[in-house]
């Protein structure tokens, strides 16, 4: 069954843990397969942006694109926001100061459903 407009909030795994990154990406691939126009909100508080994290964000955006979805980044530190702009990732991910602001905008545009270990939001 294909869900429409699902909104999922997830925290990125530690950039150094390769196995966790693989598992995370597998979940995102599943989300992309099983939903149409999903909205993935990545919570980034105090997460330092490493090249692995940037790579993972790019892979997420790629997967979401396949099902016409979108990735948003919430709670990024000013330093992280600068890096996202510098690397032009802001052209493929939306950046919000907090999860609630990301959800406020996203939820108005999309519905939501439950998904395994992510936080799930009602429209």
């Amino acid at each position, binding site marked *: 069954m294909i869900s429409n407009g699902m909104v999922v909030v997830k925290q990125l795994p530690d950039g150094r843990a390769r196995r966790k990154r693989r598992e995370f990406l597998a979940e995102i691939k599943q989300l992309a397969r099983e939903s149409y126009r999903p909205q993935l909100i990545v919570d980034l508080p105090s997460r330092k*942006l*490493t*090249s692995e994290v*940037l790579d993972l964000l790019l892979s997420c955006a790629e997967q979401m694109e396949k099902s016409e979805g979108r990735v948003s980044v919430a709670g990024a530190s*000013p*330093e992280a*926001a*600068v*890096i996202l*702009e*510098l*690397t*032009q990732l802001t052209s493929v991910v939306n950046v919000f100061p907090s999860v609630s602001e990301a959800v406020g905008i996203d939820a108005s545009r999309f519905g939501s459903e439950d998904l395994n270990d992510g936080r799930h939001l009602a429209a």
Partner: protein
Amino acid sequence: MELGALVVTQGSHGTQQIDNSTLPVLGKTVLDRWVERVQGLGINLLSVVDSDLLGSDRLHTMIDWAKKGVDQILLILVGSYSDVDLLDVVRFHHEGQHRITRVFDPLGPLGISLLDRQIILNSNFETHKLGPAGPSTRYDFLGYSVRLSSPSAYRKLVEDALEGRCDVKPNGLEAERNVWIHPAAHVNPSVRLEGSCYVGAYTRLNPGVVLRGRSSVEHNCDIDIGTTLDHASVLPNTYLAPGLCVRNSIIDGTRLENLDRGISVDLGPLGLSGRKKPISIPSSTPSVIRNRSLGETSFCVQVPIVPDAVDRASAQVEANGQ
């Protein structure tokens, strides 16, 4: 009438703070530009010292010069850049027979003073105070000046210089209107230079690079494929990775100062920028005057004026009528 000049840099004050006067602005540091202007007055007795040096040491130098017969000393604290005409300051000082002349702009003192010999000889060595000369005389300057107290001030000076709003001349050749490129720079034909910008010596702009918004790239930088600079300055010996978009920032090696947010970000761990091995660039300012030691023999030097490669190239262009 013999004049001496003591140019005092900002120094680091023992912190990580960057001394903006020693950062190049379109090919030459503000310090170098002050030194050239002092040389332009025909002053050969010139010394450059760091403000980290004790005030008593600086005063000692001036007293030493005064004892040796120097009539007046031009003291420049390099915390700002201004287009002030030093010759006019000297003339004003002479005509008014002032003992101390201090240069002000509407915001306050610019750190430029002209001191008479007698004042220096009467100074109080213990308190590092100049002698009882009565009040100093103000020389009010209403032209261009900027205090180099922040990265934003540095960017303002770069932008104003590129737009011709001040007397700072880029160290390069004007390829088009307000587009300045050093003859030793390597600019790929596919590079887009949109509006006023500067490319320094031995800098490489790779295919697809875009410079806009009065951006500057100082000497010995390498900007990789497809990177865009918009209202940005890249300081010497910096490598920038491909595909970046640098806006309203100053990058020095691995450190990025974002002027919008007022924060500093280390790009090193991400591999987005790096520090290149420095190369020596011919300068019109001999290195000997940068000696920070207090050794008497190395402190005062005669400064020869050596035209650098760009000056020669510029002269050649003018001679060819281009």
